[in-house]
């Protein structure tokens, strides 16, 4: 059974109460179509679980097959640093909603929409300022047994089951029952 080797902490991007009884960590790739499909599912799961769930997104770009994934991840990190977590999540959402055009100029436009000057993000991309940050996420995933994207961890344990809305909600609620 694979477990999260790097616990959720302040360095993570999270939505919801960090003290919530349930934590769902996703290792995702912004250019991966499966992650794109998971994106609205996660939104619905969050709506259904409410304050019982904390959601965390970590970067796992597969650059050899997704040429824009690395810059998409770095741009979201750049937006987070310059614009805060609200801007990060706006960027995260917009990237998944525009998965088909993720070249640098498009990422800069999304960053501007998220409230951070697109030129700043472009210069961060050019200087690879957030490459290490993204790689840290990636390697923490590798060491935790992430084997593709998306990979989910529920309360620190890798979840290998199906991740349609009903399946995820059922699994999370069952986890909650075991906690009680």
């Amino acid at each position: 059974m694979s477990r999260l080797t790097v616990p959720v902490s302040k360095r993570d991007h999270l939505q919801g109460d960090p003290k919530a009884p349930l934590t769902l960590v996703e290792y995702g790739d912004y250019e991966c179509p499966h992650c794109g499909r998971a994106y609205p599912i996660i939104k619905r799961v969050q709506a259904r679980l409410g304050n019982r769930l904390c959601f965390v997104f970590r970067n796992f770009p597969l650059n050899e097959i997704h040429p824009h994934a690395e810059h998409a991840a770095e741009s979201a990190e750049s937006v987070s640093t310059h614009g805060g977590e609200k801007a990060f999540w706006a960027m995260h959402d917009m990237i998944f909603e525009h998965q088909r055009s993720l070249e640098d100029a498009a990422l800069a436009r999304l960053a501007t929409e998220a409230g951070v000057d697109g030129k700043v993000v472009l210069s961060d991309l050019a200087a690879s300022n957030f490459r290490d940050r993204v790689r840290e996420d990636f390697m923490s995933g590798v060491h935790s047994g992430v084997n593709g994207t998306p990979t989910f961890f529920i309360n620190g344990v890798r979840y290998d089951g199906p991740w349609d809305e009903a399946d995820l909600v059922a699994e999370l609620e069952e986890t909650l029952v075991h906690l009680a």
Partner: protein
Amino acid sequence: MTQLSHPLPAGTPAPNFTLWATPDQKLSLDELRGRLVVLVFYPADWSPVCGDQLALYNELHSDFHRLGADVIGISVDGVWCHTAFREERHLHFTLLSDFEPKGALASQYGVYREADGTTERALFVIDREGIIRWSYLSPVGVNPGADGILEALESLQHPAAAGSGSAP
């Protein structure tokens, strides 16, 4: 689940092989003596799980290199199939064809699936002296990830670890 395969365990000398790596080039395990070697047996080029598994190892190419390891993928697919697969997926590592006699090498390593005519999804880490130091058999439908390989390779980075013969 019926599990009939018995992959060679840690401590066993790795059976040597000479297999086609490209349409005009063969590779022998002997040539890699002095390097750490990761053998990745997988059922088939192009299958969804295999593609993901190899894509992950591809991303880790520089990390494996830093640890002094060569990754080698092995399946029963023919060398032209491998060539197309490597090119399409931009794979940085060698793929060997265990094609004729089919699955002979996989059988020697204890990871051939007679019923399916493919290899198991199995991993072997071989040390610089040609001894298997870690092996792992994954259910065929499950991508085993890279954490086990990295742990095994990291445990072989220190001179003290050489010769202990135990799996991490």
